């Protein structure tokens, strides 16, 4: 199947090309777009940091961290209760369907609601406000993943602990959380990815004072910098690196987790 091998190799090259192209263009000297040039310059990087890149990255980091923390705090106890605390299969099913439904609504259709709510709460232009609004992206994702992971656990382990007299709170922290940690890692990664690069909500609910990396890139593209290829590419590259780093770290840790006995013993 030589054709298949060629197609796969080509697809792989295409998939990797954004990083290659962005890196090449980010390091171009000021001037027209010359992808094939071999000149290297830090003009783009310098300019981008002069225009608030560091603050924007910090802002994105704060919002993303808050978003992930809130999403997990909302999802984990509920995932535990619905699957382990004798609530019943019908409740699990209903929760799953409700979560699936919320996930399918276009987030832009919630924007008005989010704006008016944050406006009334005085949380416009705050990191916590945006993180709360981002639950529209993050919560259905996290809840869905954790429901699946929780439903897959072996019920006997939790039952044994309950019979032994352990309270639900103890079982939640000492049995459930370690057992779903791969799910927690997956949920953290996916919600972080969603929050980090999001543009629509950020541009409406935050001012340029607290702008996220995505907002900075957007404003550069809307300004005279759009034709300064090395500047926009530098901003694009710097915006892309933290999530890639985060995913790499998470995947390395997930592999460690799945080889440990914590998850393995308690899976059905």
């Amino acid at each position, binding site marked *: 199947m030589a054709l298949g091998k060629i197609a796969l190799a080509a697809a792989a090259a295409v998939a990797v090309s954004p990083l290659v192209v962005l890196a090449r263009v980010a390091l171009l000297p000021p001037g027209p777009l010359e992808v094939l040039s071999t000149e290297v310059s830090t003009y783009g990087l310098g300019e981008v940091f002069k225009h608030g890149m560091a603050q924007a990255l910090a802002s994105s980091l704060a919002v993303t961290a808050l978003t992930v923390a809130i999403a997990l705090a*909302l999802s984990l106890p*509920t995932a535990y209760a619905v699957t382990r605390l004798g609530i019943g299969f019908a409740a699990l099913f209903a929760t*799953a369907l409700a979560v699936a439904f919320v996930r399918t609504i276009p987030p*832009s259709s919630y924007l*008005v609601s989010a*704006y008016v709510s944050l406006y009334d709460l005085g949380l416009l232009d705050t990191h916590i406000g945006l993180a709360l609004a981002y639950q529209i992206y993050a919560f259905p994702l996290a809840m869905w993943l954790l429901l699946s992971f929780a439903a897959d656990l072996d019920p006997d382990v939790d039952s044994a602990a309950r019979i032994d007299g352990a309270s639900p709170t103890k079982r939640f922290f000492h049995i459930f959380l370690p057992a779903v940690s791969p799910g927690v890692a997956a949920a953290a990664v996916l919600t972080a990815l969603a929050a980090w*690069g999001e543009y629509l909500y950020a541009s409406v609910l935050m001012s340029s004072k607290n702008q996220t990396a995505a907002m900075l890139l957007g404003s550069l*593209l809307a300004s005279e910098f759009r034709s300064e290829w090395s500047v926009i590419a530098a901003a694009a590259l710097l915006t892309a690196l933290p999530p890639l780093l985060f995913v790499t770290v998470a995947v390395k840790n997930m592999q460690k987790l799945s080889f440990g006995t914590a998850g393995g013993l308690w899976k059905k």
Partner: protein
Amino acid sequence: MARKLAILFLTPGIFALAVFFAGLIYTAYLSLTDLKLAFSPVANFIGLENYVALFRDPIFLKAVAVTLTFVFAAATLELILGVSLAYLVYNSPKPTLYAAVLSLPLLIPTVSLIVYWLAVVDFRSGVVALALSPLGLSMPDFLGSRDLALWAIVGLDVFELTPFVMLIVLAGLFNIPRDIWHAARVDGARGVVKFIKIVAPMALPAIVAAYLLRLIDAFRIFVKVMLLTRGGPGDSTYTTEFYLYTRGVYPLDMGMASAVSIIQIALVVPFIVPYMYLLWRLWR
């Protein structure tokens, strides 16, 4: 006591769900008012006036047409490419490695991919233009052309989200029991024919789920439109989200923005219903 604790644990997630449903109802209510936050915090009931105005606005109707064209074109292309890639990856010597590499576009923020795409489709010195020029071919100005701009956006969406379809279909393929594969080989079916006749039907739930999910999610293209074309040239890439932002949220005309939001949900519902049904069937 156990009951009380159970309710305590349930509360966070159920509360979040309740907030989302309340938000939907609130948006529906606001769509029947004339709330314009730039002028007054008071929302007066005006019935279906917002909806009537929208259906009378040729730009809104154009936005709906553009959005639906985009949704179907992007999702269908992603389906075809995604299934093909899943097949190739499944049969490759190192599926996990290939799947990981091919998923890279999903991990890069869309805003960064937009800059990449600008450098690729630039008709004078972009990557594609450079690749074509030794062949004596030149590239049309996609982003500057009324007829082609939307396809430039479709192209970026396909680049970014084909791996999404590939991953879902791959998961479906890996779920097929080995005996099915072996039975297919014993029967003498070869390669692509084997795939279409035997494997694809078993992976069909995954394929259908991936297609429906893409159709549902394809409505989320605001950032690509805003940063690549701003709805232009003319109104050739004006989508419902873009309309919602520029004519609703930006001028703080919340009443009208809510109406657009509700209409958008109505447009997605024909895809949500089969998707929920599919989940129901799979969970049974």
